[in-house]
Structures are given as structure tokens and as C-alpha cells.
């Protein structure tokens, strides 16, 4: 089956190409169905190919060469198929399939319906390229291609200037990250002489000294921070919500944004050689987690809340992989993919039902109108709040455990994690109550209604996963752990502290934090509006700061964008056009002026000519006589 692994990428790609040329003619819903099927098929193939890893513990991966790309740098189109890749593949194609299905309903009536699925399929293919790539160059290819897809999908409704701008912003900010990533790759190449994984990872210990390893790790972090929206490059993600909600769910929650986490996990050996880099990763993650969570508190746009919560959850994953808890990180990546996708799709369903209303202040009391959405989102909320036995609890707890076990700085990170957990529980609960309970605050003419099957079914499925996925890797039975181990045999994977007592203690604390947050939010937001509005005013300036996301965008604008524009204008219009080109034309003018000056000598008067003639004559005579030693 592994030989046919290329199908995993080929199928969605084929779907994309096919839909690109014939999608319009197929129209609704056929285009959507084809798109969905291609992804589903890819999932099937992936699953079949993953079986070996499942049946026999510790089965090793292998690399399948497709064709030569840039042999000079050991970068060919090849697929590295191991358990890690398998997990990622299944997450991507699995969640992807559900979101495709959801989109059939959600994008109903959009004039570019088929085009939407083209892009979605293209994205799946690109994302798979990223996670299946057998060398850095191919990973980078997927890395960039998902960026492209995200650009295309964010600005899918390009007639909306804000959407177009958001897409551009996302791509450019990502590029800034890629800049770091690229230099990291250069370092890898200069040290290893190749970019192929199997040429690099085994030889890390013998080749890389700690300094270089740290450097590479930090450069990769820059790239990861770009894709996974970490400080300071997270600013694009909230804007990315301009895209259709399924996009937010698939790309900006479940899959693409986790690429950074995947990268760190994939390049674990390098981070192991340069542990400080890992630590920085973890710290960045922790700060991001707290920072984004605090912003999420005060958002009133239903999707913005989820966006910042995504940023914050990615922070968690960074803590994990940074501290060496790769499996914990991947585990949270997976669970998060489920419940965050669920939340986004839910919000999509709400927005859909509310006629594209996104402001939570204009919602409320929707539970009766859209029960399925309400309940499933409730489940997801509990999960992200870390309430056992839901998936979120297990994965988040494992991460916190890893942090705690790390000790030293780890403890600090653990505390931050806890606080974040509390805040998370708070704002998610707040959101749920604001949306689904209390008295309706809808605009006139808004007729909320439950979404069609195609949308609710995925919700339910995801809800089930949200409930169940956690049991894939409980301290009682570490299925995922064993499944992934072969992919990490080169490194020492960090784990939560041993022993049930320790586990129980930590779990109790985190769950406590979770409940506390939920209780607070529930206490405030289950009551009439003016109450919680007064509560919010209680925070004063702080709340405003949160609501305004700390004005980071304005700061960037003032410190980077505007000066950059200025510089560019200076160079273009003053220096280039005026300075350099002026100089060039100046030379031309100079030559001309010499001509005009000289021509004055040509007076037209014979005797002046005579003078010139005689002068020249004397000069010649003197020169010759002197030069010839005549006197």
C-alpha cells in the first residue's frame, strides 16, 4: 500500500485540477461532492497505508521516491511515510472530509461554489505535501503552497477589500516567517550538504554542535511562528477570519496552523541537539497562549474569539514540543483539530442561521432555534475547557504534565498554562452563553434556523470525536504514544511525571482551573445583558485593551508598514529617479555642454580659424622639436 502512497496527494490534487476546469459546468452540488469524495478517497488510502503501523507496534517508516527535483541539493519529490506522517494525514484528510461536507451546505448559493472546492482540494493536497515531504525542500514547498491556498481562501470574497487585504496580509506575514525558515534550511544544507531527512537526522549528533543546532532551531521557530501564528507573527490569523467559516475551521484551526508544531516535531533531533532553542519555543508558546487568551476574553465577534483561542491553543502545543513532549504536542494537535473544527463549524452554522451575523451581542437564546449546533458546540466548549473525560482534558493535561516535569522554567510555563486554561474556560463559556442563552438580541428580520443536514452531520461526527479522541492516549492506555514512538526513536520524548498520585494532583489542579473559569463565566453571562456589561466595564481600560487586541496592528503599522512605505517612496522617486538617473542624464548633458562650448570657437571668421591653425602649428612644432631633442 505504501507504494501507492502518492495517491494520498494525487487524489485531492486531481480533484482540484478537475474542478478547476470543469467545476463551473458541474455546478452545485456536484462539484462539492466530487471535491469531498477526492478527499475521502485520500483518507481511505491514507488509512490503508497506516494499517501497518497500527497492527504491529513500532513499525518503521519508509521513504518513497517520486522523481528528481533538485538533486544538486538532495531535494527530490519523495514521501517519507511514517507514523507521524500517518497521524497528520489522517487528521488532515479526516477533518478535511467533514469540512468539505459541511461546506456543501455552507457555500450553497455562492456564485463561485465550484471554485471554493477547487481551492479546498488544492489546500488538502498542499497540506499533505507538507506533512509527507521526505526532505526540507518538499516540506517547504507544501509550507508555501498552504500559504498560497490560505491566501486564496481568505480573500475568497475578493470584492470585499477587507478580505483581499487580509489574504495579502496572511501571505506576507507568513513570508516573513518563511524568511527565517529558508535561512534555517541554508544552514542545514551548509552543514549536511543535503536537505533529505534521512541524510540529516541520523547525522545530527555527529555534525551539529549545540550552537548551530540552536541557531537552526530558532530559525525554524521563526518559520513556525509565522505559520502557527505565534508571537510576534500571529497578527494575520484574526484577520484571516474574513474567509468563509469552513476555511477558518479547516485551515486556520485544524490543519495549516499546526504546521509549525509539526515542523518542530519532525525536526526533533535538531531541537534535541540545541535544547535552548526548544526552551525558547516553549516560552514563546506560553506567552502566546496567555497573550491570545487574554485578548479572546473581550472579543465580541464570534469568530474572533475562536481565532484568538486557536492562537492560544497553538501556544500550548508549542510548549509541549518545545519541552520535548512531541507526542503530547501532536496529541493536542489532534484533539484540538477536532474540537476547534467543531467550534468553528458550529459558529459557521450559527452565522449561517443568523444570516451572516457575527456579533455575539446580537445573538442569544439560539439554543432553542438550533439545538444541534448548540449542544455540539457545548461539548466542544467543555472539551477546550479541559473538562474530563473529553479529549481536550487529556491532551492539555499531558502538556501541563510535561511542563511540570521539566521543572525550573517548566514550572513557570506550567503556571502560565494553568492561568491560560482558566481564561480559556472563561471566554469559551462566555461565548457559549452569549450565543445560545439569554434573551434574543437579534436584529429585526433575522430568522434563526437550524442548518441543513450537510452541516449538522459533520458537527455531530466531530462532537463524537471530541468526546472520544481523548481515549487514544490516556495514562491508562497510551495508544498514540506507542503508535508514534518509532517516528521519535532518535530523540528522548518528554513525558508527564510518572505515578498516579502525581497525575491525579495535576489533573485536579487543571480541572479546577477549568471549572473556576467556567463557573465565573457562567455566573456572569447566564444573566441579563446589562449585568455582564457592567461586569465588563468593571475591568475599565484593561477590557478595552483586550477588546482592541492591544492595538498590535496599529503598532506594527506605525513602526513597520508606514516607514517601509516611506523608505520605498524615497528610494523610488527621490534617489532612483532623481539621484541615479539624474546623474546619468547629467553626464549626457555635460558632454553636450562641452560640445556647445567648443562650437563657439567656430566663429566663422577666417582669421580666428587662422589663429587656431597657427596655434596648433606652433604646438606641434614645439612638441616635436622638444620631444626629438632638437635643441
Amino acid at each position, binding site marked *: 500500500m505504501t507504494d501507492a502512497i502518492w495517491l494520498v496527494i494525487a487524489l485531492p490534487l486531481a480533484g482540484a485540477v478537475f474542478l478547476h476546469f470543469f467545476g463551473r459546468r458541474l455546478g452545485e452540488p456536484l462539484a462539492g461532492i466530487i471535491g469531498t469524495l477526492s478527499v475521502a478517497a485520500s483518507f481511505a488510502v491514507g488509512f490503508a497505508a497506516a494499517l501497518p503501523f497500527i497492527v504491529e507496534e513500532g513499525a518503521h517508516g519508509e521513504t518513497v521516491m517520486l522523481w528528481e527535483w533538485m538533486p544538486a541539493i538532495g531535494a527530490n519529490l519523495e514521501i517519507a511515510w511514517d507514523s507521524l506522517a500517518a497521524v497528520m494525514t489522517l487528521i488532515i484528510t479526516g477533518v478535511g472530509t467533514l469540512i468539505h461536507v459541511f461546506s456543501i451546505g455552507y457555500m450553497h448559493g455562492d456564485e463561485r461554489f465550484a471554485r471554493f472546492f477547487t481551492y479546498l482540494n488544492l489546500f488538502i493536497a498542499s497540506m499533505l505535501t507538507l506533512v509527507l515531504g521526505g526532505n526540507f525542500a518538499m516540506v517547504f514547498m507544501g509550507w508555501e503552497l498552504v500559504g498560497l491556498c490560505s491566501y486564496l481562501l481568505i480573500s475568497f470574497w475578493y470584492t470585499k477589500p477587507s478580505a483581499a487585504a487580509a489574504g495579502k496580509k496572511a501571505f506576507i506575514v507568513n513570508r516573513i516567517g518563511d524568511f527565517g525558515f529558508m535561512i534555517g534550511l541554508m544552514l542545514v544544507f551548509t552543514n549536511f550538504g543535503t536537505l533529505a531527512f534521512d541524510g540529516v537526522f541520523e547525522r545530527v549528533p555527529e555534525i551539529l554542535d549545540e550552537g548551530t543546532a540552536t541557531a537552526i532551531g530558532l530559525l525554524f521557530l521563526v518559520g513556525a511562528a509565522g505559520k502557527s501564528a505565534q508571537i510576534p507573527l500571529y497578527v494575520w490569523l484574526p484577520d484571516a477570519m474574513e474567509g468563509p467559516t469552513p476555511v477558518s475551521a479547516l485551515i486556520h484551526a485544524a490543519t495549516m496552523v499546526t504546521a509549525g508544531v509539526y515542523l518542530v516535531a519532525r525536526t526533533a533531533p535538531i531541537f534535541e541537539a540545541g535544547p535552548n532553542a526548544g526552551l525558547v519555543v516553549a516560552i514563546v508558546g506560553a506567552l502566546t497562549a496567555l497573550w491570545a487568551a487574554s485578548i479572546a476574553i473581550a472579543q465580541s465577534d464570534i469568530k474572533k474569539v475562536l481565532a484568538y483561542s486557536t492562537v492560544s491553543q497553538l501556544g500550548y502545543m508549542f510548549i509541549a514540543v518545545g519541552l520535548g513532549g512531541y507526542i503530547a504536542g501532536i496529541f493536542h494537535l489532534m484533539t484540538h483539530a477536532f474540537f476547534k473544527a467543531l467550534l468553528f463549524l458550529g459558529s459557521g452554522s450559527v452565522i449561517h442561521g443568523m444570516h451572516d451575523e457575527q456579533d455575539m451581542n446580537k445573538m442569544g437564546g439560539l439554543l432553542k432555534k438550533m439545538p444541534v449546533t448548540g449542544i455540539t458546540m457545548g461539548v466542544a466548549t467543555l472539551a477546550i475547557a479541559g473538562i474530563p473525560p473529553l479529549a481536550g482534558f487529556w491532551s492539555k493535561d499531558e502538556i501541563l504534565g510535561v511542563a511540570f516535569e521539566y521543572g525550573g522554567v517548566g514550572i513557570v510555563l506550567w503556571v502560565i498554562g494553568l492561568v491560560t486554561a482558566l481564561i480559556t474556560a472563561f471566554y469559551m463559556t462566555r461565548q457559549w452563553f452569549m450565543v445560545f442563552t439569554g434573551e434574543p438580541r437579534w436584529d429585526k428580520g433575522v430568522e434563526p434556523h437550524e442548518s441543513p443536514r450537510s452541516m449538522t452531520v459533520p458537527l455531530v461526527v466531530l462532537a463524537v470525536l471530541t468526546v472520544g479522541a481523548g481515549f487514544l492516549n490516556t495514562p491508562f492506555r497510551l495508544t498514540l504514544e506507542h503508535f508514534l514512538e518509532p517516528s521519535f526513536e532518535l530523540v528522548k520524548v518528554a513525558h508527564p511525571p510518572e505515578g498516579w498520585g502525581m497525575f491525579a494532583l495535576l489533573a485536579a489542579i487543571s480541572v479546577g482551573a477549568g471549572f473556576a473559569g467556567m463557573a465565573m463565566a457562567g455566573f456572569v453571562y447566564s444573566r441579563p445583558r446589562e449585568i455582564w456589561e457592567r461586569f465588563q466595564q468593571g475591568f475599565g481600560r484593561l477590557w478595552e485593551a483586550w477588546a482592541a487586541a492591544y492595538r498590535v496592528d496599529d503598532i506594527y503599522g506605525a513602526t513597520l508598514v508606514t516607514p517601509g512605505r516611506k523608505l520605498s517612496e524615497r528610494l523610488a522617486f527621490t534617489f532612483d529617479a532623481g539621484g541615479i538617473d539624474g546623474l546619468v542624464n547629467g553626464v549626457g548633458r555635460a*558632454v*553636450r555642454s*562641452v*560640445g*556647445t562650448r*567648443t*562650437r563657439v*570657437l*567656430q566663429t*566663422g571668421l*577666417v582669421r*580666428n*580659424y*587662422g589663429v*587656431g*591653425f597657427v*596655434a*596648433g*602649428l606652433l*604646438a*606641434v*612644432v614645439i*612638441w*616635436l*622639436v622638444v*620631444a*626629438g*631633442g*632638437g*635643441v
Partner: protein
Amino acid sequence: MTFAQVLTPPSVGWIAIAPEIVLGVGAALILLFDVQFKPKKSQLAFATALVLVTAFVFTIVQYDRVQTFNSATTDQVTDLVAQAFPFNLMIVLDSNAVFGRFAMLLVTGLGLAAGWRLFERLGARAAEGLALVLLSAAGFTFMASSTHLMMIFLGLEVGSISLYVLAGITREQPRSEEAAIKYFLLGSVASAVFIYGVALTYAGSGSMNLLEIQGIVSRTVFTRPAVLLIGIALMVVGMGFKVSAAPFHSWAPDVYQGAPGGIVGYMASAAKIGGFAALIRILFTAFPDFASTWGPLVAGIAALSMLLGSTVALVQDDVRRMLAYSGVAHAGFILTGVVAGGAGTSEVWFYLGVYTVQLVGAFGVVAAVAGAASSGASIDSFRGLSKRVPFLAATFSVLLLGMSGLPLTSGFVAKFGVFTEAWQAGYEWLVIVAVLASVIAFFFYLRVIVAMYMEEPVDEAVAMPGLSVRTSLALAALITIVIGVLPGPLLSLAGEASPL
């Protein structure tokens, strides 16, 4: 000795000067013919052509002779010398002379054909004009084949005086008159300077025969060669004037602009050929031992000519004036080859050949556009020529690009040749100056092309010129390109043209 013996003419190598004889006699006959029969213009043209062709045939015969000389074995040499240097070593029959004649006759033919409209306009004086052209041609080729300073002087004067007259031959044109008087006054001064130089050289070296001088110079060690050096200097100045090298160029723009359009091309070319022929004969044949002395001087003149010519040409609004200044620049380029000494002879001759052809052709176009009898040719009258008379625009472009030394034209090969020689001779700086000057030169050549192709036409109508003009222009352009693509034959022809 008996009376009969006295009457028998001396046995000298008439063949060595046969073309000149033909030209001279031809000129006289044409005048006679004109007075006697009042022939039609076409008949005059035919007669002239006949003269030129005859001269050309004799030149070919000479070429054949020269081949035998060059391929002569040592034991034959002694009796061949008499043929090679007839008239008691005053005339030489060598490849230089032959090449010079070829070039001159070609230029004359092209020039007359291109400017034929002028002779139609001249009415009764047409024959005079033609005779003068033939005479001057004879004079200048005579310069090219003399090894005796006095002979060179004679040739120079025969040529120059005819040109003075030609410059003013259209009496009704005041500017043509001005050109004539300026040319005459300055020209005669230059001649005087030249002949004074001859006199001093004679005084300094004791001979006027270049070969003897060379012998003397190489034998004697001059303690104070001032007289001789001044002599050389004055001769260089005189020739520098003829070839319009700076700073002795001031007459050229006025004359080229004022003289009748139909003939100015010929005037310019002929003077250059004669001047350079004499110059390299004097410098290379008589004074190779002073090369280190006159080399830098010539280089200086060359550099000055190239820079001054190009820069001033840049700001001209009259195409003929522009061509005159570009002529100054070209004199500089050719002198770049002269500094290389004997080695550069062939390159210099090659350059002379291709450049004079381009020059004649270019002035032919100017004449066709701005009038063959008129003076001056404002650049505006060339606006949009490509739309009005594409043929003229095309040929002119080819010729101009040829002069600018663009590859695939003869001009490039010529420039390349002289540059290589100069570099070889160690005048790198001169070559740098030269290439930069030729960049400046692109400016004004392109300016004309811009006017012809890229600007809107002016409404003054330009007639499609007659057949003779068309052929000669086409021929000039064709030569420019063919020699540019296949320089081999002409290069090797010029290659033989190294002086003895």
C-alpha cells in the same frame, strides 16, 4: 649621340602613372568635347564614366604588375626595381598606390553618380565641374603614388586647387562662395606650410626623396635635428589640415556645409584619401626611425580630433556640418591607426576605403534630400524620411550606422583594425579614448535616424532620386554591409598595401 637618339623618348614606366594620365587627358578632352559639340548631360556622364573606367582598367593592370613585384624572387628584384620606381625613384608602383587609386576611382564614380543632379543644374559649367573632379582625383592619387616630396606637393596642389574651384562652382549660392574663399585662403596657407616643411626637410636631410631620406636618417646621428623636426612638423600640419584633423579642422565644417551638396561628398573623401596617403608615406617611408618622436604627437592629434569632433558634432543642427565634425572624429580614428607605424598601414587604408565610401554615400543622401546644388541641410528636413522616401532613409541609416562603427558594418571592422594596431603599438590610452569617443558618436548618428524613423514627417516633399543616384547609394550601403560581414577580401587587399 645622334639627333635621332635625342628624339627617342626616354623609356620610363608610363604604366606607373597611366591612371593619372588618363584622368588628366580625360579631363582636357571633356572640356574640349564640351566646347566643340555642346553635348547633352547624359553624353557628358558617359564620357566621364568612360574616363573613370579606363583609369580603372589601367589600375587593374598596375595591380597585376604589383602582384608580380610582390611575388618576385631576390634575383629578379634588381631589374624590377626600375619598374617599381620609375622616374628616377620619384614615383612608386606599389600596392599602396594601387589601393589608393582603387579607392579614389570608386569614390569618384560613386560621388559623381550620387551628386549628378548638381551637374544637371550647373548647365554650361557642368563640363568644367567634371573636368575639375577628374583632375583633382588625378592629383590625389598622384600623391598616393609619389615617393618624392615635390611630387607629393604637386599632387596636393593639383587636387586642392581643383577642390577650391569646385567648392564655389555654384556661383549663385553666396554660402558656396564663402565656403570657397575660406577653403582657398586656409588651404593655400596649409599648402605653404606643407611646402615650407618640405623645404626644411630638404635642408635638414639633404634630399626630397623619401627613400633617400629614410636612408640618410637611419645612417646619420643628428646632434640637433631641429630643422628636420620642424620640417616634419610642418608637413604633418599641412596634411593634418587636408584630412581635417583637429586643431586644423576649422575649415571643414564651413566648407562641407557651404559647398554644393552634390560634390561635397567627393571633396571630403578625396582630400582625406590624398592627405592620409601622403601622410603615411612621409611618416612610414621616410621617418620610421623617428616613430617614437612623432608617434605621441600623432596620438595627441588623434585624441583631440576624436573628442572634439564627436562632442561638437553632438550639437549640430545641420546634417552636413554634423558629418563634417564626424569627419574630424574619423580623421582621429584613422590617425589612431597611423600611430602604430608601418604595421598599421593596411588597417589605415582599409579604414580610408570603407569610410570614404560611406561618406560619399551619406552626402549623396543629403544631396538627394536637401538639394544637390544647395548649401546646408537642416536635420529637420530629414524628419519622417522613412515614411516619405523609405529607400533614402534605409540607405542613410546603414551608412550612418556604418560610420558609427556598429558591428556587421564595414565601419566596425575598420575601427576594430585600427584599435588593435594602436593597442599592439602600446597606445592603450588612445584606444580607450577612441572607444569612448565612438560612444559619443552614436548619439548624433542615432539622432538623424530618430528624425528619419521616429518623428513625424515634415511636409516638404522629397522626390525619389534618379536611377544613377539610387544605384550609387545602394552600392555604398551594400558595400558597407558586405564588407562588414565579409571583410576578408578587402582586408587582405589592403593588407598588401604596406609601403616599402
